[in-house]
């Protein structure tokens, strides 16, 4: 029982840090409102969809910016998609970078776009790692027959 308590505390602290550091925002909380006994893995399912979608978008972006003549409208289109999906899952920092990225696309500055893409990739990787850790903690709690504390 003490072990479960430890895990739950760890989960709460980790969750709080994600909000504090701006990794996730209010929309992440909103997603949790959609999770219940009938859909206990909803958040993980959506975030997993986001992971898959993001990988696709990042590949497209890399490819598009590697071209000799960059089609900035196309790049902007991908960034717009990425902004939308990150916003929908509450990936705040990723979303904010996408907003900045779109401005760079408007300016058609290839170098700046490439640098921004690098930042986006790093931020996204950080988001992915952290959320995966969070989901792992949830599973550990469930396996120890504990209940995952709710976010408030």
């Amino acid at each position: 029982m003490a072990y479960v308590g430890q895990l739950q505390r760890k989960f709460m602290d980790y969750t709080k840090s994600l909000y504090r550091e701006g990794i996730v925002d209010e929309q992440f909380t909103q997603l949790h409102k959609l999770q219940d006994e009938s859909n206990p893995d909803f958040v993980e399912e959506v975030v997993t969809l986001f992971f898959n979608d993001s990988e696709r978008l990042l590949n497209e972006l890399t490819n598009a910016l590697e071209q000799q003549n960059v089609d900035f409208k196309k790049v902007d289109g991908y960034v717009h998609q990425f902004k939308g999906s990150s916003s929908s899952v509450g990936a705040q920092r990723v979303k904010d970078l996408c907003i900045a990225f779109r401005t760079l696309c408007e300016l058609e500055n290839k170098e700046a776009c490439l640098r921004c893409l690098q930042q986006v990739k790093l931020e996204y990787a950080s988001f992915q790692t952290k959320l995966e850790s969070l989901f792992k903690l949830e599973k550990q709690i469930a396996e120890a027959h504990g209940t995952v504390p709710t976010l408030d």
Partner: protein
Amino acid sequence: MARNGVISRRIRSDKIEGFEISAMDSQKEVHVLAVDDSLVDRKVIERLLKISSCKVTAVDSGRRALQFLGIDEEKKTVGFDGLKVDLIITDYCMPGMTGYELLKKIKESSALREIPVVIMSSENILTRIDRCLEEGAEDFIVKPVKLSDVKRLRDYMKREDKNHSENRGGTVNKRKLRETSDPSLSTYPSSISSSSSSSPSSSSSSVELDSPTRRLKMTNTDL
């Protein structure tokens, strides 16, 4: 040939006793057609609607939405092959047919124009909102969509049902409601040609109102 499948279904439910309950149940449940090219957003909107007791059909394009609704662009036939749709909620920015273009096509169709259409967009551009409302959209939601947004739509639809028989010009009346109760919306009177109510454009005040503009100003104060 353009048979109104909806009416005949209703008649059938009245006549066939055994089917009565299930037919009535399926008609009590609001059926929403959600249109969004984003897989993530489709998943979220689908769950938002289901948790709000709506039946959901989610499609990834305007073209597919029209196919589902029974208007096939190429064949140009109209028919109700699918279940009756009570509300259409669509993203604005989509490749191919935008949400705005989809809205226009729905409002141009005599069979479909009565279905309320709600637009979603990640960008809260007032001219965009105006355009959509002018074209007949019932409402405009700024993404990311939250539970409170969907809950409000549900309440709104219940009101629609009650008013439907007396209120053919539903859209116009709703705009009037918004205008008279929100004097800070100075853009509305100029963009809506059919409405005759005048709204004093006073200085902006914080309004507790179900209006698209309120949602723009909204932070996280509700829930």
